[in-house]
């Protein structure tokens, strides 16, 4: 058996197809094309009002328990809703991180008090989360985090710097991976996760300027930030294992192969003459074939999660090829459309293309670089 090669065939059931149809008609009614500015997959804008509408449909925190405001549904149901939102370019920015990983993490490792405090609000679309993993000296090598929490009366005093924290300036909380005991021979020991209020005293947020000019990434500096014991997530010292499982939620989903989908759809919509030549047909056929098969693999990962498995190797395998494909799609479109993109173009196609060019390098970096993912996947290829 080689885990990285095991993907059970996955198709949607009648109920799941009905959910898909429901989401499609919701989007056509609530968010008709031309009435909003679509985004590129999970980088789409934040819109708390839209997130609240999704919540009222029961589409946030879908796989969380009903007793915490969730809906006791499956990872596949969440997959179905997510893929429709992403391919529509819907504004998922406000709830994305909370719905995808912070909520499931709190449900899995959190205390009863934490679950009651955070999960219902996440499910109502009233809380947004950011990710507190990366640091200046800890990118791919997360075990080298230097942010440190020291025991004080009633809690922990946290000092350190987190970087690349998407939307920290407009989110409510973030889960911070930090060191709670000295570095030992096992670098993965002594790490813990804390749920930290982004408005805490001693916490400052500064924008990191990125090449696109967008305000997206932040540096979050924690100086003697007090975190009460009640906000320690899971076990002190178990942060590495918990964080690894958090990464599994981050990987293998439709956001890893849909980031440039809308560029193609908009090309077909607004420049049909570019999308119908012989070369365009070849590009389109290759892309659609790959979306079709990647989607089946990604769906298979969601089914594995529902069956209680931990498909880390498969998720890494899918994310690695999905994100490269997102970049390939863009290159192919650029090959078809002899354009000189300008900012703030009036056509959605040109605007998305402009954004995609400037953000594409991040596709194969965010959530684990492709080099790290290959290493994770390759461990799953050895015979068990």
């Amino acid at each position, binding site marked *: 058996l*080689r885990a*990285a*090669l095991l*993907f059970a*065939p996955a*198709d*949607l059931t009648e109920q799941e197809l009905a959910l*898909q149809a429901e989401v499609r008609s919701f989007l056509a009614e609530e968010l008709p094309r031309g009435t909003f500015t679509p985004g590129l997959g999970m980088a789409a804008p934040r819109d708390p009002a839209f997130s609240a509408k999704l919540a009222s449909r029961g589409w946030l925190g879908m796989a969380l328990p009903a007793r915490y405001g969730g809906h006791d549904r499956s990872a596949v149901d969440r997959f179905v809703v997510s*893929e429709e939102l992403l*391919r529509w370019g819907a504004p998922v920015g406000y709830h994305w991180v909370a719905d995808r990983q912070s909520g499931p993490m709190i449900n899995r490792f959190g205390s009863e008090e934490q679950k009651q405090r955070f999960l219902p609000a996440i499910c109502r679309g009233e809380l947004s989360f950011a990710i507190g993993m990366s640091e200046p000296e800890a990118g791919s090598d997360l075990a080298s985090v230097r942010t440190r929490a020291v025991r004080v009366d009633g809690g922990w005093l946290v000092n350190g710097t987190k970087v690349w924290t998407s939307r920290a300036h407009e989110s409510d909380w973030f889960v911070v991976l930090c060191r709670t005991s000295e570095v030992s021979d096992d670098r993965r020991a002594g790490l813990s996760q804390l749920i930290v209020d982004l408005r805490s005293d001693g916490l400052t947020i500064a924008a990191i300027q990125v090449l696109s000019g967008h305000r997206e990434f932040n540096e979050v500096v924690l100086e003697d930030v007090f975190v009460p014991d009640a906000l320690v997530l899971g076990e002190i010292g178990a942060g590495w294992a918990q964080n690894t499982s958090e990464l599994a939620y981050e990987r293998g989903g439709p956001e890893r192969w849909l980031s440039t*989908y809308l560029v*193609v*759809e*908009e090309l*077909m*919509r607004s420049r*049909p003459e570019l*999308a*119908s030549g*012989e070369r*365009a*047909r*070849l*590009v*389109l*056929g*290759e892309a*659609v*074939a*790959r*979306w*079709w*098969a*990647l*989607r*089946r*693999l990604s769906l*298979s990962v969601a089914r594995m999660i529902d069956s209680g498995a931990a498909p880390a190797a*498969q998720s890494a*395998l*899918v994310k*690695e*090829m999905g994100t490269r494909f997102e970049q390939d799609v863009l290159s192919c479109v650029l090959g078809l459309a002899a354009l000189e993109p300008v900012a703030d173009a009036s056509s959605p196609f040109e605007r998305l293309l402009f954004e995609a060019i400037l953000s594409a390098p991040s596709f194969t970096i965010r959530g684990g670089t492709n*080099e790290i993912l*290959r*290493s994770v*996947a*390759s461990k799953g*290829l*050895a*015979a068990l």
Partner: protein
Amino acid sequence: MSDWLLTDGARRLLADTCTYEAVQAAEADGWCATVWDPMYRAGYASLSDLPLDDALALLTVAGEHAAPVPLAEAALAGWLLQEPVEGTVSVAASTELRLDSGGLSGSAARVPWGHAVERVVAVVDGQAVVVARASAARVERHVNLAGEPRDTLVFERAEPQVIAPAACDLRERGALTRVALMAGALAAMARLTVDYAGERRQFGRPIAAFQAVQQHLVSIAQDAALASAAAAGAARVPGAFEIAAAKALASRAALTATRAAHQVHGAMGMTREYRLHHLSRRLWAWRSEYGDEQHWAQQLGRAVAAAGAENLYASITGGSTAI
């Protein structure tokens, strides 16, 4: 979901019979009774009677073992006629064939194992015509990239044994058989290459310890996973969309994965004595049979472009049920 007992039985049978030596001998002899006869006796040649996904799962097992036998042709003949054909059978498709009151005439190139089979099902103007080969055709022997017979059969007023409407589209179903075979060969090639990289030592450690080599191993696994997903999807809904997408992907994967697998194997992979070539040469052959990646991507792209932007995502999720 395919029948596990069925595929497991075939896998065990082929593990016993379809050895390195048997595949080598088949290439020299042009026929492989040591593999075919036990498969035929066990009933596997009647695979067209099985549910489609089971039949394709059997072909995937055959692909894993590089089985040098016309199992795909048995399936195609059975699907064309809606019943399995007795004995050994192959399939001929050519625009140069014609059928009139005098019988079947014309030539068909690249007929798999044409020189060796008892019967040939020729497809002429949408009709499946069964002819007995031995008495009816002049044979020019050729082989494909894998050394498997792909003969030219020349018919002159051959008497048809059966004439029936062709019950399936040979080009689509033929492509589907190649997708299933390639999915199997790619999975086997992924395992073989991972094992080799774990055993082969250079600079004092297994070459699998080098990240540059690991990248090749992962890309082969990705190609194998994509081809498997494509084969499973097309087996479930064998529509025009799914077959075109699956063959385009599997053919593309065959090119990229063989390249990476050969790179990992180094010079060893170029030798006849090591079995990588049983898989890689078949992948190169199956890649182009019944249409290569460009052909099918073009077909698919034409259909998707015609359906328009509003139906693009529905086609990705729904395939031929959507467009």
